[in-house]
């Protein structure tokens, strides 16, 4: 049974972690983040739950296309954020095409749901080990007195709230899964809480490391990893980069699976392979998107992605709500 319907919870978790790990700059101070943590979790979880309820009622061709566009934009942003990290670390060595191939080729082997689930769990375990190593390697440089004492300002709290209310596609994806077993119990709530707590944890680590300079640091987590040393290893950022790259591949595979579901791609059983031409098309679209958007402002693109996700969720909630009120019967398929 489990082989037929493997849980994708690990892959969703990994997708949320990638958003935090590849962030080029920090978004808020830890104290403000802690103050707004609960409200952030509640808002994002509520949106995810409403979306999961209303999606079966609201889905239509236009909304499916909208969701596909949102996922493709999200995948493109992930590749671009990985590229900007690599190009900052190894300027003029790794190009965008190389990065695209590095993360997209493994997706060809992750076209089965069970493969995504298993790989996600393994990568999640590796990521956990890498995070522990990161903390241990920089432990000597973490200073409690680096925590900022300035009085909490309204603007800072708003920034923290805005950052924690970012609506990532991973919070909307459980609505697509065909049955409850794949979603797990309280999947959306657990995902929202997990993502927010991890985000705060990373910000805490970075504030202990950078202190007041935290907002100015570019690719702060990688910078911290670069300073770390453990025993005979002076630099351990390569370990982080390898695991992060693997995590992006799993996230792309998850998005590909979601796109196939939205596009009604032919599949004999739930765990059957996504067709190779479909994967090739997905890869080609992503390559094209990355090539077009390579010089666009990354922060602005991320903001627009968030606005689009909120707009999309609101549209689905609105249409689904109207149909629920008017007694519209949901179709059988997800």
């Amino acid at each position: 049974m489990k082989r037929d319907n493997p849980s994708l919870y690990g892959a969703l978790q990994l997708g949320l972690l990638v958003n935090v790990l590849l962030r080029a700059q920090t978004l808020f101070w830890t104290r403000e983040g802690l103050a707004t943590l609960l409200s952030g979790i509640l808002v994002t979880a509520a949106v995810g739950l409403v979306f999961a309820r209303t999606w079966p009622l609201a889905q239509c061709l236009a909304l499916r296309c909208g969701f596909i566009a949102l996922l493709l934009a999200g995948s493109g942003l992930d590749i671009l954020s990985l590229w900007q990290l690599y190009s900052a670390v190894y300027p003029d060595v790794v190009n965008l095409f190389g990065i695209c191939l590095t993360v997209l080729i493994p997706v060809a082997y992750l076209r089965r749901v069970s493969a995504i689930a298993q790989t996600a769990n393994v990568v999640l375990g590796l990521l956990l080990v890498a995070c522990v190593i990161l903390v241990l390697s920089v432990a000597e440089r973490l200073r409690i007195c680096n925590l900022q004492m300035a009085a909490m300002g309204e603007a800072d709290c708003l920034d923290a709230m805005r950052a924690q209310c970012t609506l990532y596609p991973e919070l909307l994806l459980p609505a697509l899964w065909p049955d409850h077993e794949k979603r797990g119990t309280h999947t959306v709530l657990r995902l929202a809480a997990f993502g927010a707590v991890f985000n705060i944890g990373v910000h805490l680590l970075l504030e202990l490391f950078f202190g007041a300079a935290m907002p100015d640091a570019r690719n702060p987590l990688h910078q911290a990893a670069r300073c770390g040393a453990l025993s005979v290893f002076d630099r351990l950022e390569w370990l982080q980069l390898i695991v992060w790259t693997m995590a992006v591949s799993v996230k792309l595979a998850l998005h590909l699976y979601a796109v196939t579901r939205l596009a009604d791609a032919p599949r004999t059983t739930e765990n059957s392979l996504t067709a190779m031409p479909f994967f090739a098309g997905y890869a080609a679209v992503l390559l094209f998107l990355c090539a077009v958007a390579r010089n666009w402002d990354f922060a602005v693109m991320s903001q627009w992605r968030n606005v689009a996700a909120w707009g999309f969720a609101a549209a689905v909630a609105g249409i689904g709500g109207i149909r629920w009120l008017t007694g519209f019967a949901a179709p059988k398929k997800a």
Partner: protein
Amino acid sequence: MADRICRAKKSLILAVAVLLLTGCAGRPLIEREIVRAIFFAREDGKEHAVLLLQNQESEDSSDYEVASGEGDSAAQALADAAESLDGVMFYGLTDLVTLPADCDWEQLQEFASLLYETAQPSPEITLFVMDSRTRDNLEQTAGDLYDEMQAVEKKYRISCGLESVLSQANQAILPCWQETGYGIAVLRAGAPPLRYVEPVRAQLAAVLCGQSRKLEFVFSDGSISCTAGATVLFHALRDRTQVILRLQDASLSSLTQDIPNEEQTLRRLLSAELEDAFAQLCADTRAIGADPFRLGFWQACLQGAPGNDLPAELVVEYA
């Protein structure tokens, strides 16, 4: 099946064609100029940047080349220096930057912004405030200076990376380059910088703000030498802040006949010297509104209020 493979091939060919047309192939791997250190200087109202570059044609890793530039700002000077070179600049291995001798807090912020933009991501860059030597002198001595600074950093276990120097909002402590050992500059926003060239105060300040873990100096008019590892503990009490300096493996020896080579006597003299230095540091830094040792932070954490006016005392312990 054959139809599917054919479609896959077509899709891949299309993808490659799109990439080639949209210029996604990136730049080829080209020769780079590996910058090991940047020396900033200010002379006749102009900013100067001297770059120490790895000589890639030499098999000896300590063989360097020098490039320099000037401009109205440090950024212009750096760009001018880069323009004089053929290859693409690579700052990923830069681990030392020196700032002009008269650098204050505001200028430090400008240099930090410049470094974050150009030399990122290299937070391990060690910062030193330079002595007042000219650009010509820097060009001639850059290689030796770099090696000497590395040696001092290792000897005194100094950790003054970009991230630790900028970790406080309105103040910073920076080591100053001296021919022997290092001094310390305390920079505070809107205040003139304080500079300590005397080894006891400089090294004590570095230890108390977490930038060093070793004391090695000669004190009492050059009559006693001291070498010790040092750790610091802060106790915030209601009426004062107690700073406990724990010295490990302390090695004290008298260098003259006037002072007996007795451990207890030497320790007592060292404690008195360190307490005097601490009192002076506290008085000076308070006068410019700085709190480089974060005494206010510990008071706020443990007593609920910063207590900036509370006295601070140094307690020296020997492990």
